[in-house]
């Protein structure tokens, strides 16, 4: 028997980080009141932006479809509360590229009137395919932060030989605690959502995976599991190491199967869903509530009273911060997402979206320092959870060497930020890799474009040559026929001419 690459459940690299989670888990989840204005970006998911199906001035109800998916990959957007559409315009949002994106703005009327919904049907009587289509209508996306449309992920998994459903409650990034409190308070809904997902996927094993630093959540899940008495669901503990909550890393930890480079967890028979996503699936399938609110952690030393809140999707961050007691004097930076993978924003006008698992207001940007030259210490390679060589990638991204970057697996980088953190020269490696990835994509696009242009050019030349040949052949044919017709044809023409003259004279 060949030796396994790792011991069971062992992750390469990773870091033990200071968690900073206790400050926000002291209180239960608090409900943020419906704001006066909701800003709903039409692109809150991976894939093509949704297309608005409502017009300015139209009145919408809570839970009403306001933008439907367009193209193969996408998710619908629903109104988070009742009110009137006042604008469909570009608004500041938090995302990787560009600062503004098209948003549907709703002026809320405060009544929070819900759409009349069809009665809930027993999901077990539906076929998996029907259930998947139903999930698609709920606007549910991966709530761990990647916002991949859940229905499409499940559909893809259905086409593969999927054995395990893994519910991700690891939440390894510092500061974020929204999944932790969700598991403490809504464990029954999460596990019920897991059962729905298992029915939709037709899998017989579900692992609910929680990091060992969340004893309350583990205890609560254990209690509910005992009540539920569903033998298919297994609770698993993993050590507290960042980034064990990454999709591929979790699969590695739980099943000891390595997701291949450029592949998906379904290649090794697994599908990973966030616990929040499972709860959202429960709310949609068993209560007819689409994804219109989410739990978010508001924390950092720039916030007066850090807390976990449940807010409507589209609530401006500014109002959420006010709800958490407002800013302190120390605040300097606002980050949407965790300190490792989050994105800095320059304005708190941005809305809370499906992806926003954390709002971090801090006095100093975490892990920043003056950049110095690389000293080739190799610490980055030791911590890389994907076993890349960040140092080599750094040189190649400086040299803009696309071939080498591909060869050294840049596309497999999960942008976890571990290499940044350990770098004694404070080189912003992750940011460099992100731009390098963009450049690689651009180059590939350019190459595809050039190839297409070349094909069209060659096809055109071929066509021109063919047309010329056809013309020449036609000319030759005419000449030939004229020649063969010869004297008889000339006599014929002369005769006709003579006839015409005679007709004229008479």
């Amino acid at each position: 028997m060949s030796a396994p690459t790792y011991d069971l459940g062992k992750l390469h690299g990773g870091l033990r980080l200071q968690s900073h989670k206790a400050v926000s888990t002291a209180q239960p989840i608090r409900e943020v009141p419906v704001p006066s204005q909701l800003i709903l970006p039409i692109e809150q998911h991976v894939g093509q932006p949704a297309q608005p199906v409502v017009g300015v001035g139209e009145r919408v109800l809570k839970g009403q479809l306001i933008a439907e998916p367009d193209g193969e990959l996408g998710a619908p957007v629903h109104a988070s509360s009742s009110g009137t559409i006042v604008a469909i315009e570009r608004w500041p949002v938090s995302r990787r590229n560009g600062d503004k994106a098209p948003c549907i703005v709703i002026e809320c009327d405060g009544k929070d009137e819900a759409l009349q919904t069809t009665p809930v049907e027993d999901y077990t009587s539906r076929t998996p395919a029907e259930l998947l289509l139903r999930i698609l209508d709920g606007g549910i996306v991966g709530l761990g932060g990647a916002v991949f449309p859940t229905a499409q992920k499940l559909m893809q998994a259905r086409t593969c030989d999927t054995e395990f459903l893994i519910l991700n409650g690891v939440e390894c990034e510092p500061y974020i605690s929204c999944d932790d409190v969700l598991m403490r308070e809504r464990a029954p809904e999460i596990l019920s959502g897991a059962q729905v997902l298992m029915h939709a996927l037709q899998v017989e094993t579900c692992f609910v995976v929680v990091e060992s630093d969340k004893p309350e959540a583990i205890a609560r899940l254990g209690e509910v599991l005992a009540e539920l008495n569903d033998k298919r669901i297994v609770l698993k503990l993993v050590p507290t190491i960042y980034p064990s909550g990454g999709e591929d890393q979790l699969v590695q930890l739980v099943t000891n199967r390595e997701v291949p480079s450029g592949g998906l967890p379904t290649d090794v028979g697994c599908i990973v869903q966030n616990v929040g996503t499972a709860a959202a699936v429960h709310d949609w399938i068993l209560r007819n509530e689409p994804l219109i609110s989410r739990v978010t952690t508001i924390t950092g030393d720039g916030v007066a009273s850090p807390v976990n809140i449940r807010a409507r999707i589209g609530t401006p961050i500014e109002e959420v911060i006010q709800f958490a007691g407002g800013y302190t004097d120390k605040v300097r930076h606002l980050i949407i997402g965790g300190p490792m993978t989050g994105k800095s924003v320059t304005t708190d006008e941005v809305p809370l979206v499906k992806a926003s698992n954390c709002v971090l207001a801090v006095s100093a940007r975490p892990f920043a320092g003056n950049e110095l030259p690389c000293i080739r210490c190799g610490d980055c390679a030791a911590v890389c959870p994907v076993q890349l060589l960040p140092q080599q990638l750094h040189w190649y991204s400086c040299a803009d060497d696309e071939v080498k970057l591909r060869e050294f697996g840049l596309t497999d980088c999960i942008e976890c930020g571990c290499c940044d953190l350990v770098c004694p020269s404070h080189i912003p490696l992750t940011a460099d890799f992100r731009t390098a990835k963009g450049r690689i994509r651009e180059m590939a696009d350019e190459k595809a474009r050039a190839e297409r242009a070349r094909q069209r050019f060659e096809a055109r030349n071929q066509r021109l040559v063919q047309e010329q040949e056809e013309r020449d052949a036609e000319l030759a044919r005419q000449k030939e026929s004229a020649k063969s017709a010869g004297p008889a044809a000339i006599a014929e023409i002369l005769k006709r001419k003579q006839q015409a003259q005679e007709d004229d004279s008479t």
Partner: protein
Amino acid sequence: MWIAVLTIATIALVAGIALSFAYGRLPAGEGGLVEQVNDLLPQTQCAQCGYPGCRPYAAAVVDGSAGINLCPPGGESTVRRLARLLGKEALPLATTIEPSIAVIDESACIGCFHCRNACPVDAIVGAPHFMHTVIENECTGCELCVAPCPVDCITMRPLS
């Protein structure tokens, strides 16, 4: 003596086999190099290098009659890549242009067909005496359609 003869003969045989194998597997000399150079060019077919297309220019670069810095649509990055491939020094571009695409002012178009005939990649559609338009995704921005237009209704729009 026979041992020496046999040893040398064996070495010659092994080397011969290895060389013939390498000849078959590795990209061939001139012709292969022209293809490699052509692959690095942007395939706009704009003829701004003075050759009637990208492939003729690639051939000229390989036989040394053209410099590597004559391709404006390729930009500095293409010059750098050519320099790396051919082991030459990267020269600054002779002329630079901004990437752009052609736009036909459809209200002014008289349907003369001249631009359609000039387009090297068939990116212009339209029948004689009817309005023409540019297929945005296929336009390479070569500017070859601008000059033939009798009513000057084609402009180049920079790609932002």
